């Protein structure tokens, strides 16, 4: 019965960040910095610094329209410089929200280092037959936010300047 009412969805976007993986990794690993580049994060209300397996951080997030929500994220996987997986609660009606960042180094024609970033969000939706409809609305907003997040991430690293 449940299998017919609750479905799994994945929304994924990719972008090339024109900076080396190490610098991208440093920023995405800083749990206090998500409000700087993830557009749906209004504020990180509690954090543990550089992400550690099993530890949590909390956010105040934008939701639909003027609505906001409070979320708690747990760090589930860390594969240094390659993959990071967190799960979050507080985004009803989305359930079992999982956030996945994956990175691949790219060497461009001019020898400069870039990063192919894949940003995926997985979630489950109930709501019976309304589920797919809600997913379409949610996915469109998510894609825009994820694309913007990766654009912001590139800007943050550029604006930090060359590390000394």
């Amino acid at each position: 019965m449940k299998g017919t009412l609750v479905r799994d969805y994945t929304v994924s976007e990719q972008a090339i960040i024109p900076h080396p993986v190490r610098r991208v990794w440093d920023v995405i690993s800083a749990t206090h910095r998500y409000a700087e580049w993830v557009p749906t994060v209004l504020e990180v209300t509690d954090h543990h610094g550089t992400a550690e397996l099993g530890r949590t951080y909390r956010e105040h997030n934008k939701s639909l329209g003027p609505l906001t929500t409070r979320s708690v994220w747990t760090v589930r996987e860390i594969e240094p410089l390659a993959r990071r997986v967190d799960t979050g609660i507080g985004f009803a009606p989305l359930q079992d929200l999982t956030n996945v960042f994956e990175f691949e180094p790219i060497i461009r024609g001019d020898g400069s280092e870039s990063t192919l970033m894949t940003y995926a969000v997985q979630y489950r939706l109930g709501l019976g037959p309304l589920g797919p409809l809600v997913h379409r609305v949610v996915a469109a907003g998510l894609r825009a936010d994820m694309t913007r997040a990766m654009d912001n991430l590139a800007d943050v690293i550029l604006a930090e300047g060359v590390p000394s």
Partner: protein
Amino acid sequence: MRRTDVVVVGAGLAGLTTARELTAAGRDVVVLEARDRVGGRTLNHDLGDGKVVEAGGQFAGPTQDHVLALAKQVGVETFPAHTRGASVYVHGDRARRYRGDIPPDPLALPDLGIAMRRIDQLARKIPLDAPWRAPKARAWDSVTFESWLRHTTAGTGALDLVNVLLGSAFGGSAADTSLLYSLWYIAGFGNETTPGTLERGIGVTGGAQESRFAGGSQLISQRIAEELDGRVVLGAPVRAIEQDAGSVTVKSDVDTWHARHVVVAVPPALATRISWRPLLPPQQDALFSRMAFGALMKCEAVYPEPFWRADGLNGQAVFRHPSPICSMFDNSPPDGEPGVLMGFLGGPQWHLWAARPPRERRAAVLRVFAAAVGKPALRPVEYFEQDWVGEEWTRGGPTSVPGTGVLTELGPWRDRPFGRVHWAGAEHSDHWNGYLDGAVRSGETAARAVLGHG
């Protein structure tokens, strides 16, 4: 032990003005300065090629007659702050161009209009030389400016926009001080013939940010120090001041001076750190301790040219809460090369960002700049910060912000001479308190007080 007529403590604009006036009146004066430079809260940053940009106090405008006259006397010219083009108002993700000094926020404007009119009405009721005698002084000094703004207006728009001003003017917010102090401060945005208005305080053209000083504002102090010809002793922090009925002894790290009068021209909170014999009157000590400075950092980015001008922008922007930067200006030298953007990081945002690693703060600041003038702002050729809180001989900025109740309880003690000791500094002026003009006015007043003592 060395002897002189007057020891001036502090070679900022106030102390140097005092020394200049006293020297002109024939007094023998020595100025003791803790830093290895003059200028106090004015500071030029070297851009190379003989060009500078200001990292401290820098603006002047109409009714700031005293600093403008002084600059003229010492041969420092002014030039207009860059205003050609549109300003930008950034609220959340949206950036809107506008002209004039009032940001185009349709939801906040009605509230802001009401608040500004009411503020100016009430400010006119404040006796500038004795705000504690205002009709409702006690009541107005017992509520914060923020409480009053929340009570007076419907939303938070007016409060947020007033806080844009106070982020740079107080290094704080409307929650930090009383309604009475805020009204008095605004009432001082004028001169003896022109009443102060909020509009003049926040304005560029026709307002407090109208002009800058060619060669940087610190040049005024440097020129006065040259005039004083060896009477300024650098690297001489004053540790103790002792006085009796006939004279004052000033002990610095360099030497001990014996004088007939002393003018202390350092931030009030720092004056309390001097060892006093006899002790400062307890009321004066309590007042000066409560006149601690706000928290302010200037963040500046240098570009090969002011690229925003070609896009029709004047480089000015207002950022509504909770942006790290509250306001931004085109701080380029008079000839427009290189291009410089300057933003104020003050008050609550200073407390948030000052503790962050410099590269994170730099990224946040440049992204704020980019939100107003575009992504080229992310690639400066130079970026620097001047954090006035970390300056040992200032410890904050730009001015003191007493909390609720202080003005009515202790205000009359602000300028009261302590025996042979007189007071100067931007915080000791009724007009343009905390500004360059206030510093000059206070220096002139202190000099007159000393001369009046014979």
